[in-house]
């Protein structure tokens, strides 16, 4: 620090009420940004900041991105807006929780705890939001290459939850359900199309192409494949045509915890 890193620590309960989270945690950020540093220096104390990144909304890079997503009532609560113009498109800060047995990444930005992308999800909602973050990282390939999310993880880890988040981030409003029975679901609302496969009931990886996977890749489609390990060879065969993001979801320590890691190798 300073840099794009937020560290979550256990608070000492000396802050104003409502600054610490309900379980007594507080996130500290030291931005590498002169204006904010000078502001804090002049004030002589830390300042609190809310997240500008609303769930399932476009990641904001200019003031209008934020204002567009606020109600009039919310806007009326704002006293002053300092407009620094359009910001360069960078990832949001990495968020690391240090209050657990070992430090865990809650949001993956430029700074990484280890050499792989790995975050902790604490709920189904959280998993959906992580999917959104990962989607925003690769969304620029939309229309240029096929984007394939190859999901791996035991039963009940939340592969369908991840796809729900993906769909929501893509602007799809249809209900996303498990494709285990139908093997393939298609969603098409809000201008984007998502193909949702489940390889669990497939025994032979070639079956995936019989279902039209190859055609979809060549059409530069966005595809999510659950139980991707069962058809890994077929998916890997499209390394040139598609951006393939391998997502691994594992159970964490507590019942609702999941460890989600990803890479596009």
């Amino acid at each position, binding site marked *: 620090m300073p840099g794009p890193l937020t560290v979550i620590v256990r608070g000492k309960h000396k802050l104003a009420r409502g600054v610490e989270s309900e379980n007594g945690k507080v996130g500290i950020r030291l931005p590498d940004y002169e204006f904010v540093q000078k502001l804090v220096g002049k004030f002589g104390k830390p300042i609190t900041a809310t997240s500008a990144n609303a769930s399932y909304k476009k990641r904001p890079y200019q003031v209008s991105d934020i204002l567009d997503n606020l109600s009039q009532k919310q806007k009326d609560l704002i006293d002053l807006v300092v407009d620094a113009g359009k910001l360069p498109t960078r990832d949001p800060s990495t968020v690391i929780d240090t209050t657990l047995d070992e430090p865990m990444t809650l949001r993956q930005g430029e700074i990484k705890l280890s050499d792989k992308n790995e975050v902790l999800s604490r709920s189904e909602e959280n998993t959906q939001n992580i999917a959104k973050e990962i989607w925003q990282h690769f969304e620029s390939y939309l229309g240029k290459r096929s984007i394939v999310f190859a999901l791996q993880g*035991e*039963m009940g880890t939340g592969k369908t939850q991840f796809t729900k988040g993906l769909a929501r981030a893509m602007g799809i409003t249809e209900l996303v359900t498990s494709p285990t029975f*139908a093997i393939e679901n298609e969603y098409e609302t809000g201008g984007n199309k998502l193909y949702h496969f489940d390889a669990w009931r497939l025994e032979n990886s070639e079956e995936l192409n019989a279902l039209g996977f190859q055609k979809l890749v060549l059409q530069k489609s966005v595809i999510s494949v659950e139980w991707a390990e069962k058809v890994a060879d077929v998916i890997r065969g499209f390394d040139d045509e598609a951006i393939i993001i391998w997502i691994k979801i594992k159970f964490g320590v507590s019942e609702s915890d999941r460890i989600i890691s990803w890479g596009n190798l």
Partner: protein
Amino acid sequence: MKILAIDTSCDETSAALTDGTKILSNIIWSQSSAHAKFGGVMPSLAQRMHEERIDWVIDRAIKNSKCTVGDLDAIAVTTGPGLSIALGVGIDRAKKLAIKHNKKLIAINHLEGHMLSCLAGPNSESLELKINNLQFPALGLVVSGGNTLLVKINKIGSYEILAQTTDDALGEALDKGARMLGLGYPGGAVLEKVARGGDIKTYTLPVPIAGQEKRQMFTYSGLKTAFSRLVKSEEPLTKVKIQNLAACFQDVAFTHLVRVLRYYIIHNSSFVIHNLLVGGGVSANIEIRKRLRKLCSQYSINVLFPKSKKLYGDNAAMIGIAAYFKAQRNEYINPNLIDRKPGAKIFD
């Protein structure tokens, strides 16, 4: 009105001849034994097997009905929801037959077929009477491997979804639970048998969205996760443990279904519920039928289940029944415009 109906939506190749709500024949060729080897369904295998069997199944259905193609008033076929390439086999056959013999063609939603399967029977007159006595709006429930759906039936042909699954279907959840216990595929039926020897009080599993039934949805993802953890903590599994685990899983899965249904019955103020129509493979489960009957008797609701075992799972006779009502409304389709709708909703 004589209708030849065809269904190839998933694992079963089926053709039936119906006359009104009376079933003249209902031939089902199940592929599940072929798929069992693979522990799932192989889509191209399913397609090939439908291709191989479909003509034989249609011939058989016509023969057993003691009718001829000339007697037919219409041909009906499932267009969705289902496995796309499997649906294509039935649609293709129905279309060719309709053109060749100059018959009217009817496109049927598989879910509507399940919903109306309880109206089918061998004896036409008493059933006609029963149907005439049905009071609409009514409630409809489809519980199968691909769907868990509660609908308001305004009248036959007009449906509104009241609650549906947000993740796994009930039958799918039961199959997955069975798989976690190593009971094979398709697991739902095996799970039911094994559960009979178990004690539901052995373990506590969380009832999905307990207390929040007003969200009007079915969800099995949380239960699945909790069950997977429970199964792991109980390893190594013994026969007794498997029986108890199966009993607890099935109990909680059904409790959730009944709680959502009860919530709707209690809080519904838009119409008086006189009838509940139930269909789908999971309704073959004796325990769920028992619980639905109990629930309905508490609220003086008449509950209707399919009359024979063949009508619970996928079959073409239910497609013929749904087609009969559609024909009465003159809802035919141009054979050149019929197409598969793998993701169709009940109102599509």
